[in-house]
């Protein structure tokens, strides 16, 4: 088997991609950013950004973590000019990380055409340099892997999610850091989950994070549950949660993270995606891509996405591996799916076999392989308003 290769960054982390991120700092700069990136849509230039014009500490942190993600090699910031986003601080942080960075201010460059022209010229230079960049050997233990489920149905909790959990168990045994999430989809599982925490204090933190999610969603009047979940045979949030929980595998839970916290070492981590404090700014994550962006902000080199109904999404910055839980969906949408986990339901494979297939696929992404969503050009990205308090002392026990 060929070895894993990565791009070494100044903080010691390694990337499995070498993306130029073109980051708009308000929706008003989105079109210009998208046009700058367009000629390289199949060659690792991804548009990301924050649409809001009001300042938000969470968005600042997310943008900083994404622009200094190990899969990112250079960053172009695109500002309209009058928005509140602190472009100076973001540019400073990216420069301090050793990455090439440039800020284009549309109001200063003379408008749309001039900004696109300048932006493309800069990206062209960066792309040439990054395409010639050397890689270094990388170990499985240096990988960070996230998992999410979306478009879930009654098959997700039987095939795709437990198979992803088996892959997590294997990767954690090899020293990798794995992150599962959506505390709003762990409602009803909090006690069994807490029993897996490495310390009793962490167990209480995990229970507290799910209780917070239950309160938050109760206030909003909807659970983390879409109409298609019901059509696919899921009747309640608890039922969906039991299936979603299976993504976490069976390893001990080493810590709780919030969006942008990078796991300090290998092991299994829960990402708390529900904001702290009183309910503000609406739903915690308005769609699956908001969760994927948060996993990537925690340093995820790739994200395992389990779907039953058939999601097609990918992401900017990090590859998304699509694991199809439903054999009927797989037959309809195989071009979008990397793994056919539904064959477990039809007795054509076991959980361990599919788990190993997922683990091997993750490793292959650091050996030059690309996912279906990458091949199809999916680069979805969304970031909205939230607020979080810093991690408490029980969240990351020293072990």
């Amino acid at each position, binding site marked *: 088997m060929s070895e894993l290769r990565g791009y070494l960054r100044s903080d010691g982390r390694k990337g499995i991609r070498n993306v130029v991120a073109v980051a708009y700092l308000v929706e008003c700069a989105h079109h210009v950013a998208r046009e700058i990136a367009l000629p390289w849509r199949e060659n690792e230039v991804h548009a990301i950004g924050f649409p809001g014009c009001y300042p938000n500490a969470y968005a600042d942190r997310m943008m900083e973590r994404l622009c200094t993600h190990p899969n990112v090699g250079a960053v172009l910031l695109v500002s309209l000019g009058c928005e509140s986003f602190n472009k100076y601080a973001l540019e400073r942080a990216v420069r301090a990380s050793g990455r090439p960075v440039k800020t284009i201010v549309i109001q200063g460059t003379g408008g749309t055409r001039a900004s696109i022209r300048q932006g493309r010229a800069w990206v062209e230079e960066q792309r040439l340099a990054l395409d010639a960049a050397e890689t270094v050997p990388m170990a499985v233990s240096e990988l960070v892997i996230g998992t999410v489920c979306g478009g879930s*149905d*009654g*098959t997700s*909790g*039987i095939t795709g999610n437990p198979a992803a959990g088996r892959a997590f168990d294997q990767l954690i045994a090899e020293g990798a850091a794995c992150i599962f999430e959506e505390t709003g989809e762990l*409602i*009803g*599982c909090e006690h*069994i989950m807490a029993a897996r925490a490495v310390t009793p204090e962490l167990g209480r933190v995990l229970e507290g994070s799910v209780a917070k999610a*239950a309160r938050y*969603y*109760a206030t909003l*009047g*909807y*659970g983390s*549950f*879409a*109409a298609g979940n*019901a*059509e*696919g*045979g899921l*009747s*309640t*949030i*608890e*039922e969906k949660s*039991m*299936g979603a929980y299976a993504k976490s595998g069976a390893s001990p839970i080493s810590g709780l993270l919030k969006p942008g916290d990078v796991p300090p070492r290998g092991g299994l981590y829960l990402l708390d995606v529900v904001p702290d404090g009183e309910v503000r700014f609406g739903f915690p994550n308005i769609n699956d891509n908001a969760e994927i962006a948060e996993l990537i902000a925690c340093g995820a080199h790739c994200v395992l996405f389990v779907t*039953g109904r058939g999601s097609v999404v990918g992401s900017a910055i990090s590859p998304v591996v699509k694991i199809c839980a*439903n*054999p*009927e969906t797989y037959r309809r949408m195989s071009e979008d799916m990397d793994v056919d986990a539904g064959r477990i*339901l*039809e007795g054509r494979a076991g959980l361990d076999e599919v788990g190993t297939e997922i683990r091997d696929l993750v490793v292959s992404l650091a050996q030059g392989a690309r996912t279906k969503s990458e091949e199809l050009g999916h680069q979805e990205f969304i970031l909205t308003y939230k607020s979080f308090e810093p991690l408490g002392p029980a969240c990351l026990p020293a072990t």
Partner: protein
Amino acid sequence: MSHDPRLILLDPRDNVLVARQRLAAGETIATGAGSGTTDTAIALAHKVARSAIAAGDKILKYGAPIGVATQAVAAGAHVHVHNMRSDYTPTHHLEDERKAGAAS
């Protein structure tokens, strides 16, 4: 006594079985706890009652409660949003009038 191989029992404590393939309406099925009859077409991964369930009983799947029955459910009948509810937040679902009366 074993259940119909087209159904899965995820945990011995469960009072529902999960369809691993589509079932027609009116089929007699062995539930492992007797026999039952499907009351509607059952789509892939939907649930049927393993035995008669009383209104107010917990619905158990994966060995854990996933909600509560809102009416009596006969053995073999479809268990879903029309006869059970969450103990946490209400389930949001859409009715497609184009296929009213037919489980997809």
